[in-house]
């Protein structure tokens, strides 16, 4: 009844919130004050470990009812104080969606899972049917209603998770990095669904994301967390216009970065555009059709040097391989691919395109059913996995699938022992690898107490330690924040200068574009395009086939193609420079 009397304008009202986990040394949330109005779309970001997830847990009462610890201050959501209402009661008012779709699906069929929350609340069957129909329709999974949940793709699973929360008709939906495991197309669909719910039903969205380039277009407010505190809060343009987010290790969306650079040069923007399309609309009228000067950018030589594509001898040769899983899924269809020594290659494509299946052939984990794979002249099918793994180091997506030792040092030793190195060599290698990845200080720590990013580096060190000729990284950027990605990018450059053949599997378009590798695009188990970054990223047809969205800069310049500007611009600095030179030319 209290909520009726006070009639709160804010749907989320947090004042003076402090929280410390049991046994933790310092507070995870410090002195938070925050009001969110009904119907807002809030994008919440910040570096890993900044307290975002802890904040989510406060919103539906998981803190303090599920997690003990020390809570001070007040959190009121939809008029209910979390201190007085258990999570099961809060669930009708605020819905929480987590990162891993698999860990929030409970039923065996889609419609049954959507109904799970309502069943728990004791809603009658008649009422339930109507609501779950609506929830499935809103999230675009209506036609999957009687499918088995384990057969869904990652994107479908995550939309199911949203439908399941939506069915309980909460006023606020909170999502904790919901698109980490999804490809860009899957992620965009999630954001579209959220935007519709926000627009048509006035549902307040609080979205935690690292994928800022995509998410920023949908948000009307951005909040940046750092070290348990709010350091920035306001419109996307204002927040990313400030310097604090960058200093805290949060990436600035590419379009905002471009706008910032242009305004520093004196170009005035009335509204800061948040996406490529609105940027182009903003700038089009000010851009003269013909420009001054030619665009001889002498990029090819530089490219060759960067990717090591000096046509040295082949390192990995894949000839006509096909692979069908026992379940009947045809993962690879007649794939040909040659990777040269010292080359840097990115394999891209949507989830299920066969990328991981392909790289598992590189060290013999999978033996091709047709065709052949040779590594440095050795036929992979004829030797053991261990002997080929000695030359091709594979680092998998999830470090938790391989860490098991007492301490970090032991973890790194594991492979070296398996390969039969001498003890004194092992010690040298361990030292070298720990230094390389800057985890020397954790040498004696258990890998399990480290943060996600650190665990990832331990996994990487444990592979690099044996100094394989080829390093393959499967989805290295998943769940990594901007600072961690930058660090990874520098590390990849380092590997390249050491002459290692480096292969990454990724659907992180902006990251790959920044790395400038040779790109191999895959779709439905086939290679659909293969070439340098600039060429592949401007090949709209091939990108579409592989369901890869072009990077933001390419989006801008592809829409400006009739202005005689080059279309293959990836670097923000170069983009700002080109546009500025053209505009200045007009003023003269």
């Amino acid at each position, binding site marked *: 009844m209290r909520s009726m009397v006070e009639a709160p304008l804010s749907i989320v009202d947090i004042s003076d919130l402090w929280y410390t986990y049991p046994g933790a040394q310092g507070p995870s949330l410090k002195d938070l004050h925050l009001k969110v109005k009904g119907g807002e779309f809030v994008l919440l970001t910040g570096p890993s470990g900044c307290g975002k997830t802890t904040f989510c*847990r406060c919103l*539906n009462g*998981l803190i303090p*009812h*599920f997690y003990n610890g020390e809570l001070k201050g007040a959190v009121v959501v939809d008029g209910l104080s979390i201190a007085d209402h258990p*999570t*099961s*009661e809060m*669930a009708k008012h605020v*819905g*929480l969606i*987590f990162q*891993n779709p698999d*860990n*929030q*699906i*409970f*039923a*065996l069929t889609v419609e*049954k899972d959507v109904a*799970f*929350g*309502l*069943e*728990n*609340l*004791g809603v*009658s*069957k008649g009422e*339930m*049917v109507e609501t*779950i129909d609506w929830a499935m329709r809103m999230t675009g999974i209506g036609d999957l209603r009687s499918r*088995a*949940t*384990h057969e869904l793709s990652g994107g479908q699973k995550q939309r199911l998770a949203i439908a*399941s*929360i939506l069915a*309980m008709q909460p006023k606020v939906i909170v999502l904790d990095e919901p698109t980490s495991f999804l490809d860009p197309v899957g992620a965009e669909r999630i954001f579209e669904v959220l935007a519709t719910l926000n627009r048509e039903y006035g549902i307040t969205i609080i979205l935690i994301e690292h994928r800022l380039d995509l998410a920023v277009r949908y948000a009307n407010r951005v909040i940046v967390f750092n070290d348990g505190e709010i350091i920035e809060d306001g419109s996307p343009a204002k927040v990313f216009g400030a310097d604090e987010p960058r200093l805290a290790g949060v990436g600035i969306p590419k379009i905002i970065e471009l706008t910032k650079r242009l305004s520093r040069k004196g170009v005035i923007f009335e509204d800061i555009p948040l996406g490529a399309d609105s940027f182009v609309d903003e700038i089009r009228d000010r851009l003269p059709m013909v420009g001054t000067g030619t665009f001889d950018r002498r990029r090819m030589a530089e490219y060759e040097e960067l990717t090591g594509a000096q046509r040295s001898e082949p390192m990995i040769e894949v000839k006509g391989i096909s692979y069908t899983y026992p379940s009947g899924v045809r993962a690879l269809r007649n794939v040909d691919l040659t990777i040269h020594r010292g080359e840097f290659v990115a394999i891209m494509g949507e989830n299920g395109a066969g990328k991981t299946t392909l790289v*598992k052939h590189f060290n013999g*984990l999978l033996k091709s059913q047709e065709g052949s794979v040779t590594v440095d002249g050795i036929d992979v099918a004829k030797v*053991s*996995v*261990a002997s080929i*793994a*000695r030359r091709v180091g*594979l680092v*998998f997506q*999830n470090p*938790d*699938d*391989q*860490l*098991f030792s007492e301490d970090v040092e032991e973890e790194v030793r*594991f492979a070296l022992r*398996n*390969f039969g190195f001498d003890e004194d060599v092992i010690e040298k290698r361990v030292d070298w690898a720990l230094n390389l990845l800057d985890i020397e200080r954790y040498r004696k720590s258990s890998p*399990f107490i480290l943060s996600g990013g650190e665990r990832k580096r331990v996994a990487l060190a*444990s*592979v690099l330690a*044996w100094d394989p000729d080829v390093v393959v990284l499967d989805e290295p950027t998943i769940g990594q924040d901007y600072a961690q990605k930058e660090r990874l990018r520098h590390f990849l450059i380092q590997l390249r200068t050491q002459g290692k053949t480096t292969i990454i599997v990724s659907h992180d378009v902006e990251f790959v574009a920044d790395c400038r590798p040779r790109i191999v695009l895959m779709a439905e188990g086939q290679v659909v395009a293969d070439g340098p970054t600039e060429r592949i990223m401007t090949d709209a047809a091939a990108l579409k086939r592989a369901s890869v969205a072009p990077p933001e800069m390419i989006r801008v310049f592809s829409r400006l193609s009739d202005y005689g500007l080059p279309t293959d611009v990836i670097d923000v600095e170069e983009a700002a420079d080109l546009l500025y030179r053209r505009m200045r030319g007009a003023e003269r």
Partner: protein
Amino acid sequence: MSLIEGLRFSWGTSPVHNLDPRVKFAMTSVLFVLAIMFFDLLYLIVILLAQVPIVVVGRIGREWMKTLKGGAFLSVIIFATNLLSLFFFRGQHLTSDMIEFSLSLTIRFLVLMTSFSIFFLTTSPDKLSLALEKARIPYEFNFAFITAIRFVPVLADEAQSIIDAQRSRGLELERGSFLARIRKYIPILLPLIINSIRRSLELAEAMESRAFGATKKRTNLYELKMGRIDYAVLLASVVVVSVAVYARFFLPSPGPLIPPITFI
């Protein structure tokens, strides 16, 4: 493994899938009881043949064949051990009735296996849990049962990823002595266990967020309702079991199927 395959629910719709799980349980129980009641080869063959139409209507022919293939080895063992023990304990004579007796035990095994298959292959765990709910099993047990089934494919995928990751780090599972090989499973089991603990925490959070345990009076999207076919099948099961009891106790045995011959 293929023996277990025969117990895994196969998604699909058919009149057998649509039967009320309680009725289906009664039906398969009747088949089960019949198989145990009779020793006569003729009757057992009739029961086995009577199951074939159910398999066909349920469209689980392929899965059933897999189960039979998986059970073939066990069937041979049952036949051979029975025959050999009869041979040695009855003065090292081999007669046709020994063969008939061993054969009937083998057929009985196949009948039991088929009735299990029919039930588990065509009953979705969702419906099974509903039946358990009706039987007043506490919901927590029910939920645990469904969750266990739900996570079998997830855990299988995870185990495969872990095996791949460790093999990529030079772990050779198939080399070394027996003890050494067992030790080699530590790098696979530990991440699996730790991940499961982590996962269970995440699951608990997600359950809380979906109002698990909010009310004692939980409702269910699916309801069990007996249809006309259900009543018909139930009636048929009762009739069959009554006739069988009558036949077993009041009618003479049909006698051996194979004419009596002494081989050795």
